């Protein structure tokens, strides 16, 4: 416990902001999805760090992180399937060109 809790939280905040930048700035939809994965990882670091430092006796934090992992896997599968379907019909996954819903 020589490492302060805030170091882990700062690392997680940094990962979250890097992923946030990736989601907002990338032109390619798969690259934006990679940013989302980084953000989910940052959330999991936070959950595990709080579990270890605030309440290590019961495993709630770790179990919550396992559920986040399951949801992230579902999200990646559906997201990539959407991108393959969009690529097949539109021949692009540049998010600037996928504006069919724009009024």
């Amino acid at each position, binding site marked *: 416990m020589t490492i302060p809790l805030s170091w882990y939280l*700062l690392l997680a*905040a940094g990962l*979250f902001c890097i992923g946030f930048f990736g989601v*907002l700035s990338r032109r390619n939809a798969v690259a934006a999805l990679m940013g989302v994965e980084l953000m989910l990882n940052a959330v999991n670091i936070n959950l*595990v760090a709080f579990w*270890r*430092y605030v309440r290590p006796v019961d495993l709630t934090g770790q179990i919550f992180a396992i559920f986040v992992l399951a949801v992230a896997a579902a999200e*990646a599968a559906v997201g990539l399937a959407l*991108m393959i379907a969009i690529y097949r019909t539109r021949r692009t996954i540049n998010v600037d060109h996928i504006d069919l819903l724009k009024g």
Partner: protein
Amino acid sequence: MPIVFLILALFTVVMAIGTVTARNLFHAALFLIGAFFGVATIYVLLEAEFLAVSQIIIYIGAIATLIVFAIMLSRSMMGREAGGYNRFWLAAAVGAAALWSLLAWVLTTVSFPVVNQPVPADAIFQIGTGLVGPYVIPFEVASILLVVALIGAVMIARERHRQR
């Protein structure tokens, strides 16, 4: 111990920055695998070994493989300009930096109720009994969600042969 943490954190952050800056999408995917691995080592430092192994199996073994497959299935994404930025990239960078500064200020000023207790020796046993005991409903809901999401993914990505 702090030096180990600093090395691993630096590795993770460098890999994450590589993920969002690499021009080649395939390189970005490889950087993403490095970032996932760095996060797994952080879990080991936090004494969450089960989660570290799950991280490597699920993220590196499954999600990263899916991303690499999606990149290879749409060939134009392998091109040179595929990893470019849109016109909001500067605003996004400033926003992300501002968000991190705000979070850093909050996280360093707030004091959390930290306790100095060891991790229970049978942590993995407790996770196992927890998932079929008090957390059985969320566990089943998560499995239904996974099945529905995977069937939906197959339906969305399926080639349609209906021709008029």
